[in-house]
């Protein structure tokens, strides 16, 4: 493994993970450890969300915790919603936020946290990269196997406002098996593929060694457990492992500069339609192949997680890189087949259209990949059909 790091690398992951049986019950004690004691719980709008809220409130019984509950948070978050939650938080003297579930609940929580820690104007002032001047109030997330895959990250958006700062990362991530029940296969598969993309991009992004443990753990769990869970969604242990993997991937992703697959995926989604996860499952193997063509050693380092190290190990770096790409292709192909996802149809895009998309992705400002690679990924993916 290469360990050369010319410029200093920073790693920041302030999230404490509590994962497993009775994890939710640990919440009051953990909040007390952070010096807070009156959280505001946020919950989502589906019947499953309400069921989950009940579980959480049941788990808090006998703890003496004083808390408030606000919701349901709709599936489309806008400024008025954020403002309303913030007002409830401030008027009732809360000092922490607990997001029950992922997706827009966490999105709202992160935005509200900006508004309530400083002043409501901060939502306008703090847009952009590393623009939050001080630590935010305590934020806990009780996660599910679902959502967007950005819950654990340092990122949140509101319309076309984008915020990226380590201060947005949750202080507590509670992963409890009770919250995994009832997860729809489609939602779970999509978020796990997103997490896989994040992990692979983080692994290939650079040489920050502190990111490596997170990417390894995420990729291993996903390769080991996703097929099992897709075959049997009631497999609680696999669901838990995958929820863990999504968290690890989010942490890793928050410590590198965002990569090509994500940006391309975001730009493609409105154009071709379809789930972000499905799109990424098509782009990811092509991305891996492109990187392998330029820098096979980097891709070869993924070989142990994707192919296992038990038996035969190809002796040469190019062979390992090729093996890794193949393993990724196969894995994602099987996921697509299981989920009934179509292949990405990019044949309709002409060259000019592809260039527009790549340029838009580059302009997002988070990519450090080159334009040529972006174009190649799209071209190669189109060839796959």
């Amino acid at each position: 493994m290469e360990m050369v790091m010319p410029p200093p690398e920073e790693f920041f992951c302030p999230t404490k993970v509590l994962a497993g049986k009775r994890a939710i019950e640990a919440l009051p004690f953990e909040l007390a450890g952070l010096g807070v004691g009156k959280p505001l719980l946020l919950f989502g709008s589906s019947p499953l969300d309400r069921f989950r809220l009940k579980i959480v409130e049941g788990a808090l019984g006998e703890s003496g915790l004083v808390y408030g509950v606000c919701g349901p948070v709709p599936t489309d978050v806008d400024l008025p919603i954020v403002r309303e939650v913030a007002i409830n938080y401030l008027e009732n003297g809360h000092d922490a936020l607990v997001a029950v579930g992922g997706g827009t609940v966490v999105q709202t929580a992160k935005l509200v946290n900006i508004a309530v820690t400083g002043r409501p104007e901060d939502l306008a002032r703090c847009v952009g990269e590393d623009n939050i001047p001080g630590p935010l109030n305590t934020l806990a997330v009780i996660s599910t196997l679902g959502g967007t895959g950005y819950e654990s990250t340092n990122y949140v958006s509101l319309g076309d406002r984008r915020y990226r700062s380590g201060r947005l990362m949750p202080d507590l991530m509670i992963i409890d098996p009770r919250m995994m029940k009832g997860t729809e296969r489609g939602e779970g598969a999509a978020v796990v593929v997103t997490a896989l993309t994040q992990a692979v991009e983080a692994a290939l992004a650079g040489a920050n060694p502190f990111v490596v443990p997170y990417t390894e753990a995420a990729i291993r769990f996903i390769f080991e457990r996703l097929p099992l869970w897709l075959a049997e969604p009631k497999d609680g242990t696999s669901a838990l492992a995958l929820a863990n993997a999504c968290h690890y991937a989010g942490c890793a992703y928050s410590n590198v500069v965002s990569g090509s697959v994500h940006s391309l995926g975001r730009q493609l989604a409105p154009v071709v339609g379809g789930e972000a996860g499905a799109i990424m499952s098509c782009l990811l193997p092509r991305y891996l192949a492109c990187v392998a063509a330029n820098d096979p050693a980097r891709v070869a380092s993924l070989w142990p997680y994707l192919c296992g190290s038990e038996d035969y190990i190809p002796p040469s770096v190019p062979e390992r890189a090729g093996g890794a790409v193949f393993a990724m292709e196969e894995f994602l192909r099987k996921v697509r087949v299981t989920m009934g996802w179509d292949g990405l149809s990019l044949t309709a895009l002409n060259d000019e259209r592809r260039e527009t998309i790549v340029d838009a992705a580059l302009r997002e400002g988070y990519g450090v990949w080159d334009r040529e690679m972006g174009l190649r990924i799209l071209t190669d993916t189109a060839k796959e059909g």
Partner: protein
Amino acid sequence: MALSYRSGIPGGKFFKKTYVALMLWFVGRAIQAAASFDEDVREEFSALPDGFTFSMNVLPAGPAMIVGKDKQGKIRYRGWDPGRQRIDLSISIKNIENAILLFTFQESTAVATARNRLIVAGEVPWACAVVRVLDMVEVYLLPKVIASLAVKRYPAWPLGRILSGRVKIYVMALLGW
């Protein structure tokens, strides 16, 4: 659907709390009993300072058990209310569900410690001694099948010691001798 706000409804867990309270009461008296007839338990306590008092309790305000050394060095169960006693060592279980896991033997003391289910405040050597005492008491109280899950290493005591000790500990704990 519009956003609404409400205060949290504090729930109670009466049956779980009662069960844990009962278990703590019984374990406290079992420790008192074991200290009266078992050499090894007595030896552990003799190494602890005079007036040594330890408690096992459930946070935030849950059931508790206090055991202490009186002036003659005898080990006594001291009820569930610490009152104004100085507690030299406290084993605090972080919440009632963790206490249930412990007292229904789903998690042994070792596993519960490894899973951060409890916090220990006090000198570490005392904690080690108290855990050794708890292990021995559990061997007396529980059939081997369960006790071997509860303790890390089931001791190689002769069957006679275990059986006669088991009778004594139950009788004495229930009658409060």
